[in-house]
């Protein structure tokens, strides 16, 4: 098939799909949905935010596996780190790329502590209002990236056991907490009603830290050289 024919075919298929989706969206009959069911069980979930209740109680198993995907991406990205034999563009630290701008350098000392506070707040607030482990984790990750970008004395050393424990700790704790209910003959992830609130807050704490670490590790990659060396003499 020539390129022109392939272009036309793919464009037609994409258009047909979009049209089909629009048609479906317009013609969908109203279905009941699960909002009512979630609301009725919210009290038993141990948290007040419906989204958090779905993520960490009703469908906590989805979240557990999703953290597995995040960890997988980290492991996959680390596995691409070349040995000594190749130039390390695949994974070298972001901070060894273009020079950080003075604006950024001025900004970071103010920004990072604020971001840490926001991350902590989001984690804590997640049980009652919008917010939670993902939002907290992503803000934490963004703060760590900023910190790395600015070339402060901070780097992620993926070969260290401590770093790896940090990155996978959220998943491991979630797995362990999820297995505890089996002791009393309950299903995995079946939080007992009186403990569910505190269990969820603790799991979210672990997830916030690990998600932040994993996202930062994914963004900055593996430093090919210690960042200090890459950055020395760059600071204005």
């Amino acid at each position, binding site marked *: 098939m020539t390129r022109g024919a392939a272009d036309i075919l793919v464009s037609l298929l994409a258009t047909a799909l979009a049209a089909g989706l629009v048609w479906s*969206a317009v013609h969908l009959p*109203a279905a009941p949905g*699960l*909002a009512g069911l979630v609301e009725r069980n919210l009290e038993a979930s141990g948290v007040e935010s419906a989204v958090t209740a779905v993520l960490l109680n009703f*469908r906590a198993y989805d979240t557990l596996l999703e953290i597995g995907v995040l960890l997988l*991406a980290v492991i996959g990205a680390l596995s691409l780190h070349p040995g000594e034999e*190749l130039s390390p563009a695949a994974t070298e630290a972001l901070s060894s790329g273009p020079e950080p701008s003075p604006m950024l350098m001025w900004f970071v000392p103010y920004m990072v502590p604020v971001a840490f506070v926001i991350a902590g707040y989001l984690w804590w607030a997640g049980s009652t209002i919008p917010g939670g482990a993902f939002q907290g984790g992503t803000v934490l990750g963004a703060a760590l990236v900023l910190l790395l970008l600015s070339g402060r004395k901070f780097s992620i050393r993926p070969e260290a056991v401590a770093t790896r424990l940090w990155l996978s700790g959220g998943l491991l704790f979630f797995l362990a907490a999820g297995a505890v209910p089996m002791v009393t003959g309950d299903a995995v992830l079946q939080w007992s009603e009186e403990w569910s609130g505190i269990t969820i807050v603790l799991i979210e704490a672990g997830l916030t830290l690990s998600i932040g670490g994993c996202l930062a590790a994914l963004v900055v990659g593996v430093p090919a050289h210690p960042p200090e060396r890459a950055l020395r003499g760059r600071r204005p």
Partner: protein
Amino acid sequence: MTGHSLIYAIAGALMVGIGLRALFLQAHLLTKIIAANVTASGTFLVLVGVAPFNGGAHPDPVPQAMVLTGIVISVSITAYALALLRRLYDVTGATDLPEERRK
């Protein structure tokens, strides 16, 4: 407020079409990765936009939870894909797949 969700579902559907077309037709791998992300964003908008709501004040939290999960999965895969792209460029010097190379 959610009464207008249909508008966003339609926008999402169009984004899916645009993204998928570029995913298959654009040769540069960076564009392909962006296209996959555009498709994902469109899919998420469809997911929440068409989700059932029972007229109450509260939108259905289940699609929102699904999209939250989907966003984290999508950023994970994107990050890995970009690492793979850098490695591919490192090893082969190319930023596209051999069968799609434009001379």
